C-alpha cells in the first residue's frame, strides 16, 4: 500500500518539504500542514496523511541544521542541540555534528515507528492513566536537569532557571483568566513565545558577543576533505547509548499528550550527561550531546501519533491539525479508527519507515554543502544570522512586537554571556514552567489542596524521588571534594 509509486512520491514530497521548513526557523510543521490541507482534500486520504506525516517528522531532521551551524534553533525541540552542536561547529566539526544528527534522527525515528507499530494500544492505555500529579512530577524531573545544564556556577544556573520560570508565568492565568505581567499589552495575553526567547538568547546574543570580539574574524574552521565532513566510526560508536536513550525517552514522552518534544530533548540530554564517562565535557562540543536530543525529538513523532491514532487525542499542535485533517477527509478519529481503517494505519506506518530512509539519504549529502556556509566571513555570516532570526520570529505570528522582543532577548543573551550565566537553564525553566504550574494547580484542585497527592500515587512518587536524587548529585559531589581537600590539608 505504502509502496505504490504515488505514495512513495508524496512521501518524498512530504519529507523534503519537512526538511526545508525544519531548516528555516519560525514557520513550523503545524502552519505548513494547515496551508497544504486544502490541496490534500482531493487526494487519496492515505496518500495525504503519508505526505503530511512526512512533513511532521521531516521537520525534525531539518531543525538541527541552523542550531548546529548558526546557533539559531530551527524548531523549539532543537534548542538543546545548540549546546554541543554549535560548539562542535566552532571547532570545525560542523560536518560530523550535522551527520550525527541525521544518523541519530534516522535510528530514533525508526525506533519510534517500531513503537507505534508494536505497542501503540498498551502505550496509549498507560498514557491516559497519568493525570496532573504525574505530569507535575515529570516536569519537576525535567527541571532537575538544570543540574546538568548549569555549568560552572550552580547559583547562576538556578537564577537563570527562575527567570525562565517567571517568563513562563506571563500571559493569561488559565484558571482564573487573570492577566499576569502583560503590562496592559494585548500581545502579551498569551505570554511570550518560547522560540522568540531561544532565538534571541542563543542566536542574537551570540552574534552580539562575537561582533564585539575581534577574534570573530577567524571563528570557524572548515576542514577540507569529505572525510572530515562526516562523522567517523568512532563518533558513531560514542553515540551508541545516545541513540538508545534518545529513542526510548523520545517515544515515551511523545506518547504523553501535552508533554512535547522539547521536554523530551532536554531530558534525554540530561540522561546522556548523567550516564556519561566524561560529563564535564558536555557543552563544549561532544557528539553525544547532539545525538541524544536529536534522537529524542525524532522518536517523539512516532510516540505522538500513538494517542492520535488509537484514541483520537492530539498531544501537540501538529497532531491537532492532523486530527483536523482526518476529520476533513471523512474519517472518524477515535478508539475505532485503526480497526475501521487498517489500510490507513498500516500505510502510514510503512511509509514512515521508508520516509526515514529517504530523509537519511536526503540529509547526509547535504551535510558537506551546509557546512560550507561557515566559510563565509563574519561580516557576511552575522547579517545572515540576524536576518534569519528576525524573519523566523516574524513568521511565527506576523507581529513586529515579537521582533522587538527578539531584540530585547538578544540583549539579555549578550548580558548573560558577559556575566557568565548559562542560557540553557533559562530556556528549560521557560519550557517547563507553564505545564508545571498547570499540572501543580490541577493536582491541588483534585486533592482539595492536599500535597500528599504527589506521593500517594506511585508513578508520581517514583519520578519525584528520581528528581530528588538528581538534585542532590552536585551537593554530594561538593561534599566529597571538600572532604578530599580537608584530608589533603591535614596531611
Amino acid at each position, binding site marked *: 500500500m505504502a509502496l505504490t509509486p504515488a505514495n512513495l512520491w508524496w512521501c518524498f514530497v512530504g519529507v523534503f518539504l519537512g526538511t526545508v521548513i525544519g531548516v528555516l526557523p519560525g514557520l513550523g510543521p*503545524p*502552519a505548513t*500542514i*494547515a496551508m497544504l*490541507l*486544502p490541496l490534500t*482534500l482531493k487526494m487519496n486520504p492515505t496518500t495525504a496523511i503519508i505526505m503530511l506525516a512526512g512533513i511532521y517528522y521531516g521537520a525534525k531532521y531539518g531543525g538541527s541544521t541552523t542550531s548546529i551551524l548558526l546557533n539559531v534553533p530551527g524548531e523549539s525541540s532543537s534548542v538543546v542541540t545548540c549546546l554541543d552542536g554549535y560548539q562542535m561547529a566552532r571547532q570545525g566539526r560542523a560536518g560530523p555534528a550535522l551527520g550525527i544528527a541525521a544518523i541519530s534522527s534516522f535510528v530514533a525515528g525508526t525506533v519510534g515507528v517500531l513503537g507505534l507499530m508494536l505497542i501503540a494500544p498498551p502505550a496509549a492505555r498507560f*498514557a*491516559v*492513566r*497519568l*493525570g*496532573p500529579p504525574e505530569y507535575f512530577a515529570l516536569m519537576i524531573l525535567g527541571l532537575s536537569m538544570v543540574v546538568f545544564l548549569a555549568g560552572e556556577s550552580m547559583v547562576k544556573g538556578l537564577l537563570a532557571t527562575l527567570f525562565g520560570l517567571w517568563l513562563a508565568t506571563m500571559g*493569561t492565568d*488559565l*484558571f*482564573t*483568566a*487573570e*492577566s499576569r505581567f*502583560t503590562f*496592559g*499589552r*494585548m*500581545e502579551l*495575553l*498569551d505570554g511570550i513565545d518560547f522560540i522568540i526567547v531561544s532565538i534571541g538568547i542563543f542566536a542574537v546574543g551570540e552574534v552580539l558577543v562575537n561582533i564585539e570580539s575581534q577574534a570573530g574574524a577567524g571563528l570557524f574552521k572548515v576542514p577540507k576533505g569529505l572525510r572530515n565532513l562526516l562523522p567517523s566510526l568512532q563518533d558513531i560508536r560514542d553515540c551508541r547509548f545516545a541513540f538508545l536513550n534518545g529513542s526510548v525517552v523520545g517515544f515515551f514522552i511523545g506518547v504523553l*499528550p*501535552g508533554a512535547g518534544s522539547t521536554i523530551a530533548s532536554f531530558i534525554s540530554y540530561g540522561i546522556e550527561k548523567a550516564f556519561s564517562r566524561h560529563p564535564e565535557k558536555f557543552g563544549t562540543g561532544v557528539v553525544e550531546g547532539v545525538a541524544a536530543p536529536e534522537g529524542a525529538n525524532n522518536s517523539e513523532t512516532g510516540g505522538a501519533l500513538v*494517542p492520535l491514532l488509537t*484514541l*483520537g*487525542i*492530539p*498531544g501537540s*499542535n501538529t*497532531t*491537532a*491539525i*492532523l*486530527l*483536523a485533517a482526518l*476529520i*476533513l477527509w471523512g474519517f*472518524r*478519529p*477515535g*478508539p*475505532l*479508527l485503526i480497526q475501521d481503517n487498517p489500510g490507513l494505519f498500516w500505510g502510514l506506518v510503512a511509509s514512515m519507515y521508508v520516509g526515514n530512509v529517504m530523509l537519511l539519504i536526503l540529509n547526509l549529502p547535504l551535510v558537506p554543502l551546509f557546512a560550507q556556509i561557515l566559510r563565509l566571513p563574519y561580516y557576511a555570516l552575522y547579517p545572515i544570522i540576524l536576518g534569519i532570526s528576525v524573519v523566523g520570529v516574524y513568521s511565527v*505570528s506576523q507581529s513586529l512586537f515579537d521582533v522587538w522582543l527578539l531584540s530585547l532577548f538578544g540583549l539579555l543573551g549578550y548580558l548573560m554571556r558577559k556575566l557568565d550565566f548559562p542560557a540553557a537553564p533559562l530556556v528549560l525553566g521557560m519550557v517547563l514552567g507553564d505545564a508545571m504550574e*498547570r499540572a501543580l494547580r*490541577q493536582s491541588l*484542585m*483534585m486533592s*482539595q489542596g492536599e500535597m500528599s497527592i504527589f506521593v500517594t500515587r506511585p508513578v508520581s512518587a517514583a519520578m519525584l524521588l528520581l528528581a530528588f536524587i538528581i538534585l542532590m548529585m552536585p551537593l554530594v559531589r561538593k561534599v566529597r571534594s571538600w572532604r578530599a581537600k580537608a584530608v589533603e590539608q591535614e596531611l
Partner: protein
Amino acid sequence: MIKTRGFHVALMSLFLGTLLLSPVWGQGFKPSRPVEVVVHTNPGGGSDVFARAIAEMVDRERLLSHRMAVANKSGGSGATAMAYLAEKKGDDHTIGFFTNTWMVTSLTRKEAKVTINDLTPVVRLILEPMIAVVKADSPYGGMKDFVEAAKKNPGKLNQSGGSPGAPEDLYRLLIQKTTGAKWNFISFPGGGERISNLLGGNVQLLMAQPQEIGEHIRSGGMRVIASMTERRLADLPNVPTIGEQGLDVPILDQARGVLAPPGTAGGVVRYWEDLFGRLVQTQSWKKYVAENQLEEAYLKSREVGEFWKKQGDLLRSLLQEAGVKVAR
C-alpha cells in the same frame, strides 16, 4: 398615495442604480481576490476546523470564484483576532468566524481593546449543543446521580473542561447554585487532555460537543448522562435533557458564525449574508451538519446583532453570578 406600478419600478431602478454607482454603499460587491478568513485558534482548533470545512464546501459548491484562505490569529482567547479584524477596517476581503469565546473575552478581558460589538455582524450559522459524559464504568446513571454524589461528597468529584467562564464551567456553577452540590472544575487547555483525564479516571465528568467525543461513545469508552439542551438530541433519543432530570438551568449553546471588520458597508454584508444563505441550502452543508451533530441556526446580520446583545447580557449576568470578574 397609491401610484402606478410603473412608477414604483422606475423609482426602484433609479434607487438601485444610484446604489450601484456609489461605492460607499458597496452594493454589487463581489470579491475580486482571495478572501481572508480570520479564526482565533491555532491550526487544528475548533474554529479553525470549522472555517476550513466551510472553505472547502464553498469551493466544492462553487459559491465563490476566489479562494477562502484561513488566517490563524490565535491568542488572548479571541482578543488578537478581534484586534486584527479592527485593523482590517475598510478591507472588504476579510471576514472572521466568531464563537461564544469572543463574547466572553469581550466581557471579561480589559486588555481586549476591540470587542465583538465593534465588529460588523454578518450571519450566525450553527449552534453546537453540549452533552455531559462519564466513563463507561462510572456508577452515575444520569446527571442527577452525579449531582447527588457531589452533594454527599462535596469537593471530591472532578470535572474536566476548558477555561473558566467557558459554557461547561458556567453549567457547573449554575447547577451548584440551584442544587447546593459542590465539585471541582479542572481546566485543561487542550480538548485531548480533557478526554484523556476522563478515560484515565482522574476526573469523573466531562461536558463537550457531541462531535468531540462521539467516537468514544461509539466505542463504548464513555456514556452520555445528559444533554444540555431544551429538547432531546435527534442522535441521542434515549438521553434525557438536563431539564428533564430536574436541573433547572438556562441553556448556553455555543454559537458559530461570521462577522466582518468594523463599519463594513451594507452591500458587502448583504453579499456575505446571501453567500452563506446559499451555502446552508447545499447538500454538502446538510451532510456536514448531520455528521457533526450540529444544529442549524442561520440568522442574518441584524438578527445576529440582536443575538449578540441578548447572549452578551445573559453571559454577563451568569459570569457575575458565578463570581468571574467582568471588565465591561
